[in-house]
């Protein structure tokens, strides 16, 4: 087994463990921390997949900004009690998810997928490539995304305002 595979298997295992922790830990803050670690692991996976720019963005935006926001809100609301568990429903949900995985996995195992990656240039995944694509082919979605973020900000302010 070569290095790349080893790294991959390691990262995959850790990712799965982190996800399980997110879902099954009882303390909300612990869950948040688990999610941060999951996000970081994914960022590393991105880098291994020759998408350095996106990987860095993942760290900065997702793990950095969004998770901080989550933590703010958790601290703000300060939920006191820990959740109770309901066995039947947990079992049912877990089963459904297993079924989902069971259906998805064979679906993605179709044979007409490329096994080996296409030879990549050095520039692949770099900011230049991303920027070229973003500002020429995808300029409209880009602008709309900006508007979307503006709307989100306004919406959040309105929704979370303390009523006088």
């Amino acid at each position, binding site marked *: 087994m070569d290095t790349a595979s080893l790294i991959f298997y390691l990262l995959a295992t850790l990712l799965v463990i982190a996800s399980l922790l997110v879902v099954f830990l009882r303390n909300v803050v612990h869950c948040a921390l688990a999610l941060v670690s999951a996000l970081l692991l994914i960022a590393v996976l991105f880098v291994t997949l020759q998408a350095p720019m996106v990987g860095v963005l993942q760290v900065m935006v997702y793990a950095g900004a969004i998770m901080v926001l989550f933590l703010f809100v958790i601290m703000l609301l300060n939920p006191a009690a820990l959740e109770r568990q309901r066995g039947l429903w947990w079992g*049912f*949900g877990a089963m*459904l998810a297993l*079924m*989902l995985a069971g*259906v*998805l996995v*064979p*679906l993605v195992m*179709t044979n007409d997928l490329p096994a080996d990656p296409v030879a990549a240039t050095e520039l692949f995944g770099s900011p230049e490539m991303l920027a070229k694509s973003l500002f020429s082919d995808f300029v409209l979605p880009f602008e709309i995304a900006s508007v979307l973020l503006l709307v989100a900000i306004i919406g959040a302010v309105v929704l979370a305002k303390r009523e006088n």
Partner: protein
Amino acid sequence: MSTDLLRWIPLIPLLGSVINLFFGRAMGKQRAGALASAAVGASFALACYLFWQLPATGIFRDLVYTWIQSGSFQVNLAFQVDALTAVMLLVVTGIGFLIHLYSLGYMGHDADMVRFFIYLNLFIFFMLVLIMGDNLLLLFVGWEGVGLCSYLLIGFWYHDDNNTIAGNKAFIVNRIGDLGFIIGIFVLVAELGRQGIWTLDFGELQKHVKMLSPGTITLITFLLFIGATGKSAQLPLFVWLPDAMAGPTPVSALIHAATMVTAGVYMTARLHFLFALAPATLAVIAVIGAATAFFAATIALTQNDIKKVLAYSTVSQLGYMFLAVGMGAFGAAIFHVFTHAFFKACLFLGSGSVIHALGGEQDMRKMGGLKTHMPKTYWTYVVATLAIAGVPFTAGFFSKDLILWQTFSHGAGILWGVGLLTAGMTAFYMFRQLFMVFHGECRADDHAKAHLHESPAVMTWPLMILAVGAIFTGWLGAPEYLWGSRWDHWLAPIFGPAAEHHGTVSTELLVTALTLAVVAAGIYLAYLMYGKPGAQTAQQTANGIFYDISLNKYYVDEIYDFVFVRPFTALATFFASIVDPWVIDGAVNGMAATVRGFSTVWRGLQTGNVQHYAAMFLVGALALLAYYLGQLS
């Protein structure tokens, strides 16, 4: 002259009815009645004019507008006047006019007089549509219309439930006959249509009916005759006519003697070409006619109500008319319609005069000795009674004898015998009535006696005119050995030349002599039992089983009630109280309950819990994915 004139004959009475409907109250009773009478009088004048003009052209037609147009099937609102219609027109409008005048006196004290004249004019309108229509459908419209007016007029004094029940009975029994009529029309149209001819015009029918098979024609004529049985009160659908006497007497005179009940005879005469092709039906008609004549006469023998005697007498005379039809002697049948209209109307109006004089008394056992108090009524009544009995040289003599002769000479010996006996009974019960009402001691109670008076001129003049008609109208149809028949000559364009003599003059004279003998016997028997002074009190005690059966009209109404009405009512009650709430409502409510049941079950899905909903999304997505997985492999 313009043929547009034709449409005015029915239209003027219709207008009279409508004007009285809207303005009658305001005009006042007398003026409304005068308007109605004038309307019918105007129609009569027009009818006379047409009658005078007719021989030149043979037939008048007036197309008002096209009523039904469907493919090649066309039915018009069109009137025609030929020799047959002209005769009927004179009867309907002439006698109708006299009865309108009579009603001005008879109904003069009635608060609802305006409504009476509205209905009466409406009746004249429908009767005219019936006889003037140039196609079978228009005839049927008139047929239904006169049935409606009959119902309205029988139940005229509706505050008494018995009158409305009688009206209902008339309408419902007629309806049963009309069902046969309608089905007959349908079969006729369908069968002719199958041959490619789509029409109900009388002229067209006459040209094409030979295309139909004899079996079909027999079926059609039989169905049409069922309709005639209802309208013209033959066995078994005659039961409404005696009860119809609940209506005012002018109504009985006009509708149930002179005009409406003869519609069945008119219909068969109009369609004579069709009936002539169905000897089986004609045989049935003859038998029913003779049987009805006999049967009704036996009931009339014992009745005590003055109008009931006349009602059963009408049924009996209608039987004679159908006997003539059954023999194929359509001319003779219409001749009897014509003469009968005069003397029967005279009898009914006379009885109305008596009832009016006695302040409403109708039981003959409480009458008697009225001839001194009401001479005009008495003498006209005598003339009419002589006519109906068939005394020589009265109208009834010529028409009835013609029918009996036609029956005999066509070889129907048994039917002739029945007709002969009936003639004897007719003479008997009519003279019984004459003696009971006008001769002997006056048995009326004191209240009625004080009220007794001859009727006013407006009532006695129509009586006198009708009495004259009761004698002289018969002279139009005298047999060959006297001065010949102008009647047959007049109707020749329709029915063909008069049938040749089947027998010799001497046979005919012999038959006539037999008839006269029977009639004389009847009159003498009546005189013995009722006419001789002191005889009447003796009759009160004569009661045998036949008397009871006859008096109770053979319990026909009770039998019908038991056999038909009760099972039907039971069935209707069953449907109303069991099928309707349980089955029909049950089905509808059951569906609603089922839906409600299902919804109660499915409601459980709406838990309000978002996670449950998410799970449901997932299940759906899983199903889809599984399907694609299946597709792939």
